[in-house]
């Protein structure tokens, strides 16, 4: 007697890379990580509109700051390592970037916690700027 399948499988062709290695810090308060170092804040901002690989993050930072901020590979990957372990970002896997050769590169994206921390830091800085405005520091 033929037994029916317990599950039906959809064999979808998919290039999604859900579930890279992520480190969750559960129930952590975003405020507990503030203030962020400039490197971490720049990386979070670079990843705020989508996943990027290391060089992509560097390019985004240089472009957005009109070349005034240059991050070297040591600072970048050291920061990424610590951001991964504190749950701010997660790795989404390896894939090639056709614009930059055929090598497979590791991509990173913000976690929900990372987004909350970025928001909290931006608010903190905005408050500081509004104080500076009140005191006419900004003219």
């Amino acid at each position: 007697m033929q037994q029916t399948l317990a599950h039906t499988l959809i064999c979808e062709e998919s290039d999604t890379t859900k579930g890279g290695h992520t480190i969750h810090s559960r129930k952590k308060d975003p405020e507990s990580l503030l203030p962020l170092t400039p490197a971490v804040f720049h990386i979070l901002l670079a990843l705020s509109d989508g996943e990027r690989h290391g060089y992509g993050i560097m390019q985004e930072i240089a472009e957005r700051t009109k070349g005034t901020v240059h991050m070297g590979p040591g600072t970048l990957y050291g920061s990424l390592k610590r951001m991964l372990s504190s749950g701010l970002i997660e790795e989404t896997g390896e894939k090639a970037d056709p614009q930059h050769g055929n090598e497979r590169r590791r991509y990173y994206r913000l976690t929900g916690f990372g987004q909350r921390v970025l928001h909290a830091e931006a608010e903190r800085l905005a408050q500081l700027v509004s104080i500076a405005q009140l005191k006419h520091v900004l003219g």
Partner: protein
Amino acid sequence: MQTSLQLLNWSQKLYQLLLFAYPSSFRQEYGAEMQLTFRDCCLEALQSDESGTFFRFWCLVFYDFAKSITVEYAQLLKQLWSKEQTYSPFQVQIASNTDIGLKRQVNEDKMLSVIPEESNLREKKGSLVVVADGMGDDNAGARASDLAVTTIKEVYYNTNQNIADSLVHAIKLANQKIFQVNEVERQKDTRTLPKSMGTTCVAAVIKDNSLILANVGDSLAYLIRDQQVHQIAEDHSWLAEQVRQGRMTAEEAKKSTKNRNMIIRALGTQADVDVYATTVDLQSGDTLILCTDGVHTQVSEEEIYTIVTQYPPQESSRYLIERANENGGPDNSTAIVVRID
């Protein structure tokens, strides 16, 4: 052009040497990526029309090297110091149970738990628990889930990578093995429909203060902490995917009868599989539950919480299965309960 190429080669060689100064764990994890990123930056500097760009680029590289290497060694020292201060592995109690359920002819679920006897291996690789829910005709599902749990155990304890990478690698190899068996089956007899098999799997490693979890399919894991149930695996059922994509609300998915048994990811269906993996810092008093859909579709999170917080692991795993059967027992059910103290 020739000069630029020479400068690029020379720069890459010099940077490769600089990388050797970083702590070896950092170099192994990020060295290749750093070299790649360095090459891209170097090319960018060489292609710039502005004079002095290449010189400024190398100044930045040396500055970055000096700064980051100091930070990395300081972090390493801090880690070593805090490890010495806080190193206190938890006591781990593991219990598991499985049942055919009330409607099935065969139990296609498989489970496995390993606490290595050899202290070196235990310290290096930790304890491993795996649950798999096989699918396929004529007992093929049981074969697939068996192949999955045994391969994961074998490969995990014999892979010399970090914990998360070893676990993901072991699951990917299990996928390849099952896929290859399916391929051979397909080639054997092309006149009839091929008898393919597949399986879900959820695996966890408990090492020092960390829980490393990986899964494919709809066998799930829950962590009970601070009187709350956290689902820590990613549900690869069709319904959960609809919720993630925003096509259904969680409430609609709960009530939906459409594609209730359909999963979008499994081991053995394709040559490569995307494995979800996550790491959680453990706390004393945590309870981890790994189970197949035969349990979590029949026993609510509230019931799971009530059972595992009331009874020790051995009884908890038995009661979870009993409750799944009391609620209908439509599928095989398997549960592993791990208490961390």
